[in-house]
């Protein structure tokens, strides 16, 4: 089921975005509308994904991980969502594309898999039909050819009897199987980028391990870059090359996984790391981050983590931008001080 280079649209080949990034998100802002009006959900989100790389996105529930992904895919209804900024994919700014152009990119160049494998597949079509549909949507091939590709795709995600499984409806599949189908569907057109939004959260650990393994293997084989969204730091630590941490609709820290986890610079990342329970760790002494994420309508004007931050200082009430040092980003007024303190305390 190889796809010849010629079939690939221009976006992918003309890889001209800065620093060789496949996807480059720049100052992304997102406003959503609900009953009480517009609210800013994402504020100045910037990050890059390089070809073939796996980027982990972590953060607590509601920090805007999914919204970032959906903004990239432009899957938010325009009536209820406003995006600003730049989302550069290859040589195009996705935000400037027409709906038609965008739907050609979706599923073909960027695909996405979702958290809930239970509800992410159309219950009234067989899984085979849903994969075939994807193929037919992007390639001018015969139905037969599309079928073959679909079977191949199911085979490649480790489904033992792909022909039989293709005849089944989603409801007769287990969660793990469904997620495999989702992956098969996402990868059948061999996209350059796969956005995986908490693909294993609803699964058991053993199945989670299978799925993660499969994702990594496939992405390596096909050279697909992955944006891997999760709230599980450990998963990121095991599976990703680089990571960003989000908080309150902003990216607050980013860099190579090993570096960030070894020497977290933002107090929030530190807090997250310390709150993970472990066997043998003295009970009752987990390092919890006090307080809660403020509501989107009541974000502090300065650093958004300031009210919960153990290192909060008056300067933290000023707005803070993101700083780039080497291949790491950090959004904190006091990161340099804190790094030194840490160094001293060590």
């Amino acid at each position, binding site marked *: 089921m190889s796809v010849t280079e010629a079939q690939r649209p221009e976006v992918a080949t003309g890889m001209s975005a800065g620093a060789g990034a496949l996807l480059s998100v720049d100052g992304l802002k997102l406003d959503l509308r609900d009953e009480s009006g517009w609210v800013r959900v994402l504020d100045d989100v910037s990050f890059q994904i390089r070809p073939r790389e796996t980027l982990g996105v972590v953060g607590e529930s509601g920090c805007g991980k999914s919204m970032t992904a*959906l903004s990239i*895919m432009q*899957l938010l209804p325009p*009536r209820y969502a406003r995006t600003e900024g730049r989302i550069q994919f290859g040589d195009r700014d996705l935000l400037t594309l027409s*709906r*038609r152009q965008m*739907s*050609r*990119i*979706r*599923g*073909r160049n960027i*695909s*996405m898999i*979702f958290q*809930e494998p239970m*509800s*992410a*597949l*159309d*219950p*009234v*079509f067989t899984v085979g039909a849903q994969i075939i*549909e*994807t193929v037919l*949507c*992007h390639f001018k091939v015969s139905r037969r050819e599309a079928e073959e590709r679909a079977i191949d795709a199911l085979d490649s995600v480790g489904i033992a009897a792909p022909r039989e499984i293709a005849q089944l*409806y989603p*409801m*007769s599949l287990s969660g793990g199987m469904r997620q495999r189908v*989702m992956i098969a*569907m*996402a990868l059948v057109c061999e996209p350059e980028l796969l956005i995986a939004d908490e693909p294993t959260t609803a699964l058991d650990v053993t199945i989670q391990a299978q799925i993660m393994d499969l994702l990594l293997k496939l992405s390596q084989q096909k050279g697909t870059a992955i944006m891997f969204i999760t709230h599980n730091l450990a998963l990121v630590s095991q599976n990703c090359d680089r990571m960003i941490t989000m908080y309150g609709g902003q990216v607050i820290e980013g860099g190579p996984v090993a570096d960030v986890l070894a020497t977290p610079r933002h107090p929030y990342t530190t807090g997250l790391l310390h709150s993970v329970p472990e066997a043998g760790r003295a009970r009752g002494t987990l390092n919890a981050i006090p307080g809660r994420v403020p509501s989107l309508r009541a974000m502090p004007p300065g650093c958004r983590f300031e009210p919960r931050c153990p290192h909060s200082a008056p300067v933290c009430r000023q707005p803070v931008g993101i700083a780039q040092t080497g291949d790491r980003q950090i959004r904190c007024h006091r990161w340099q001080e804190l790094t030194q303190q840490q160094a001293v305390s060590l």
Partner: protein
Amino acid sequence: MHGVGKMVLRRLAQLIPVMIIATFVVFALVFLMPGDPAVTLAGEFATEARINEIRALYGFDQPFWVQYGHWLWNALQFDFGRSLFSNEEVSRLISMRLPHTLLLVFYALFLGAITGIPLGILAATRQGTRLDKAITSLASLGVAVPNFWLGIILVSALALDWRLFPATGAVSIFEDPLGALYYATLPALALSTNVTAVLTRQVRSALLEVLSSQFIRTLRAKGLRPAAVLWRHGLRNVAATMLTIAGLQFNLLFSSAVIVESVFAVPGVGSLISYSALNKDFPVVQGVALVLVVLVIFVNLLVDVLNSILDPRVAAST
């Protein structure tokens, strides 16, 4: 499909007690009605002796259980007896009248569907706009309007003033299919408002729910055009809802037909049953009620079967 076959069998098994209970309910109700068919049978200038004679002749003096049992036994052999008042075989009465009612009901369903479904889709895809509000308001109107009143107004406007349609009557669908449709148009129109309204509402909300569900996002994420998402996946997912609504409406349409048939002088079972119930024409009421109940149950069964073919989840859950 394996699951479907099983479901049909199960439903058929359930059907038997339901039908027996249903016949019992009607029999009991008709029995409880005060008044005596013997009085009517005896005629305008009857004497009391004659009435007693007739009572014995027809077995009205037997206890309830005997009469019911007798009837049930015959009904099991498809013998519903004869009308007390016109001596017509009930089965013949039904076979002559049911087609008229069915034509009306299905015609009304059809009219309701071709208006309600597009309106529902339109409202759902334009959710929150003026158009949506206008359509939902229209739907409310459709539910609130008394059918027979609408029928009367339709008759006076379309039939009597403009002479577009015949005011009354019916033509047998078997003798003159086009004529039958022509005759049935006004009454079906009067009946259909409810179907239109309910379908509009339900299609709208079901489609909204489907369109906001997770898998729609998946479909769009894999590059499907909005039109394909709506027409292929959205509609297929609400098909079960539409069918279910149609099934429920089927029953309610019979209800409305009772009155609308009399306004339009349609010789259907609706007018027959109300007329016979008032006259305590046991065999007719019984027979018609039984046939209606079987029809309703059968249609619901059909809806379930179709649903389970359309939607595998239904097959699994039953």
